[in-house]
């Protein structure tokens, strides 16, 4: 039995923040979970999938996009089944229409929305703070600070959702999603099956003929009730202190702040820890602030709490100086070191001798460290596709990038990505450029999962508007970047289960794409020819499907199937001219450099090479040999 599913109250296990949220869902007795995978929230879906056998009453799905996931969870909730959906912060943009309605309609059973936020944008193209949405959706926002709170708040969120008849948001930043530590368990209710029961409620569910106005009023009234109750709900608390300068913080910044205050010797500062950051309660905030001389608000990004608290103070006529975004940056991610250094400046506290020494050394000795930029994994089909595109175009095209592993094409050695903003921006922005009469060819990228997420309307539009561009669909059969969730083109799961993949070519044909070619990316020479042909065609939408399963998934499959054939690639140092075609232009991490006294050789690191054969295909000097060793054993089954 997995630790996450143990039904032993008080037991302490090791869990990731995201897993704690999964556990919260189990303890709350959910019957429905949907998600579109997005880092940092992607492990939540994986958690439910992994527990699928033990909790077969929970419907879990990787939906096609966040709007579909949200609608599904709303449906389950209206059918009186506790439901949950999870997405990364930008997912809320995709599902925003549903979220704006969900306050009008209210819920059936509890409905909780988990948002993985990403201050610092470590895995996103934006830092967007979704808390601000709640100023117009009015959905309550909970902000856990610890792994334990991630679980406990999730459980409580369902009660809150049912009591106030509104979906509740759990906002967890990446540093909490990916924090791994102690988690104390509570009981999981015994549920055998989930039986939905939809009670029709046209007044709430049909927002026509002025119904929207009434429901808007209902929503504002229930938020007022919640606002009044906030203090008694147990999400916020005060850490007392005798100083006259106080602090307000929420989420993981609370812990950074507490550590910073201890380090700076400010152990008597009163701190208000906010666990529910929308709505906030006037009485609670004012009673904390009223006897203080100054209050600092420590939070990430544009300052959602500061905005609300200042608004509240204006209405109450209380004039206490509030310091927030005037000293803490509105961009990037806060941490203990940044908060300490800002507060040290603010309170004129010198750094400790130990810290001073280390900061001086860091300034002197770490400035010339070469960065580690991302690179495609060894054996990645995208590397081969990108290599072919670079060779076929000579980089003389406009390259529309998109969201997925292939974003790494923006980095060296390929550098053939002219923009990347959001899902399906490649062909979307590309078609505007076509109508603006750019002279270069337009080549856009999209991955299989990204294409199905929101790329189909995009492509239909391009057909309707008679756009000329080449769209390369990098079909690697999985949502790889977020940890290998299945995509609509996944044929077989790792344990051999056959799925029903979407007929991609049939779909393209039915929406009117007449030019479709498929390449096998590791056949680099023929891929280059196919891409050149597509570019030469010049007119109309031309789609090239680069079809090859993600190397990491394929490798797991081969390991599990005990294949009987082993292929190795070797560089013959006698023939190698050190032309750098494989080491630099292809840039495979498994091709390494062995330096001797005054010279060097390239070699293939056998333990990491996945034997894709790209280097063999491109070597202009035929210096990379392919060796096949046949082993006695089961026949090789390829996917």
């Amino acid at each position, binding site marked *: 039995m997995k630790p996450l599913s143990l039904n032993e109250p008080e037991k302490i296990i090791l869990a990731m923040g995201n897993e704690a949220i999964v556990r919260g869902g189990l303890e709350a007795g959910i019957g429905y979970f949907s998600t579109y995978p997005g880092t940092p929230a992607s492990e939540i879906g994986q958690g439910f999938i992994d527990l699928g056998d033990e909790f077969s009453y929970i419907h879990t799905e990787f939906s096609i996009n966040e709007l579909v996931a949200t609608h599904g969870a709303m449906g389950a909730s209206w059918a009186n089944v506790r439901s949950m959906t999870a997405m990364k912060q930008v997912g809320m943009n995709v599902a925003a229409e549903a979220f704006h309605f969900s306050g009008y309609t209210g819920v059936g059973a509890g409905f909780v929305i988990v948002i993985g936020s990403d201050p610092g944008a470590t895995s996103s193209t934006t830092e967007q703070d979704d808390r601000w949405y709640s100023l117009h959706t009015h959905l309550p926002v909970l902000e856990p600070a610890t792994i334990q709170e991630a679980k406990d708040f999730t459980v409580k969120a369902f009660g809150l959702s049912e009591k106030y008849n509104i979906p509740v948001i759990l906002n967890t930043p990446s540093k909490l999603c990916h924090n*791994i530590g102690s988690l104390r368990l509570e009981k999981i209710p015994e549920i055998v099956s989930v039986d939905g029961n939809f009670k029709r409620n046209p007044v709430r569910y049909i927002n026509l003929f002025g119904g929207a106005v009434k429901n808007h009023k209902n929503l504002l009234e229930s938020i007022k009730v919640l606002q009044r109750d906030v203090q008694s709900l147990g999400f916020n608390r005060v850490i007392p202190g005798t100083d006259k300068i106080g602090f307000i913080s929420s989420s993981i910044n609370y812990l950074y702040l507490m550590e910073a205050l201890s380090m700076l010797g400010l152990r008597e500062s009163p701190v208000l820890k906010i666990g529910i950051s929308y709505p906030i309660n006037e009485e609670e905030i004012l009673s904390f602030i009223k006897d203080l001389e100054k209050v600092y608000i420590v939070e990430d990004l544009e300052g959602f709490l500061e905005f609300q608290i200042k608004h509240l103070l204006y209405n109450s006529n209380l004039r206490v100086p509030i310091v927030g975004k005037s000293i803490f940056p509105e961009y990037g991610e806060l941490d203990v070191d940044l908060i300490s250094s800002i507060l040290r400046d603010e309170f004129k506290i010198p750094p400790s001798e130990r810290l001073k020494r280390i900061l001086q050394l860091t300034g002197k*000795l*770490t400035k010339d460290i070469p960065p580690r930029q*991302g690179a495609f994994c060894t054996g990645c089909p995208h590397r081969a596709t990108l290599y072919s595109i670079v060779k076929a175009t000579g980089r003389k095209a406009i390259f529309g990038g998109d969201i997925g592993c292939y974003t790494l094409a923006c980095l060296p050695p390929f550098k053939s990505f002219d923009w990347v903003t959001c899902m399906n921006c490649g062909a979307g922005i590309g078609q505007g450029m076509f109508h603006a009469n750019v002279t270069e060819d337009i080549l856009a990228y999209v991955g299989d999962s990204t294409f199905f997420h929101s790329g189909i309307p995009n492509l239909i539009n391009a057909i309707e508007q008679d756009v000329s561009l080449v769209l390369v669909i990098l079909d690697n059969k999985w949502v790889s970047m977020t940890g290998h969730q299945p995509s609509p083109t996944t044929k077989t799961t790792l344990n051999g289960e056959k799925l029903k993949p979407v007929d991609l070519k049939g779909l393209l044909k039915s929406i009117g794409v007449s030019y479709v070619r498929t390449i096998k990316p590791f056949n680099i020479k023929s891929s280059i020819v196919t891409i050149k042909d597509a570019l030469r065609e010049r007119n109309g939408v031309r789609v090239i499907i680069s079809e090859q399963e993600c190397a990491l998934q394929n490798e797991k499959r081969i390991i599990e199937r005990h294949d009987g054939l082993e292929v190795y690639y070797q560089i013959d140092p006698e023939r190698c001219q050190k032309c750098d075609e494989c080491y630099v232009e292809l840039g495979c991490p498994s091709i390494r450099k062995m330096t001797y006294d005054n010279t060097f050789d390239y070699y293939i690191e056998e333990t990491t090479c996945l034997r894709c054969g790209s280097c063999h295909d491109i070597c202009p000097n035929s210096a990379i040999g392919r060796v096949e060793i046949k082993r006695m054993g089961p026949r090789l089954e390829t996917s």
Partner: protein
Amino acid sequence: MIRYDILICGIGGQGVISLGTSLKLAAIEDGLTVVGAEKRGGAQREGVVVSNVRYLGLEEGECFDDRNMAVSGLIPNASVDMMIAMEPLEALRHAAYLHEDSIVIINNFPLIPVAVRIGEYEDLDRDEIFSRVREFSKNVHIYNINEIAIGNFKSLRQVNTISLGLAFSLGNMPISEKSLIKTLKDQFSEFEINKLAFELGVRIAGKY
């Protein structure tokens, strides 16, 4: 208060996170509280990976206190008790977390960054890296753990468990050998070989 902070750094695919998991599971076994965030943007993709492992616990007679027990997922600058660097450059990259008494273990097996490979940056000489790290801390221990693993087990899969043995032996960690071994048993299917690798690490550190 029991407080002990370990920072593990390396690059994607080196098992940084699973090494952190071993150290965390052992602490839970020993009744400590543990936290620690990961930085893993570049997992599997040549990027930097960091695992923060932070132990905290109460001594006899102490009781819970909001200020002492507030420990975030990230270790502050100049405060790690132990650093395990799976790659030399990564030890230097994260040197701001060290102080002069930090114990540093470096796997002397450099992996050249892509930026160097394509000529955008110059590589740093290995001895230069080590001498710089030694300016930060006076307890720097350097081993070619890859070579030790290949030499003893003909495989790189034991690199992490050897590192665990080294770390356990060199650092005065508040966790027990018994719990660490139990963790290996729970975590890995090949328990016997991992136990041998752990013990090898402990032995090598003793000889140092």
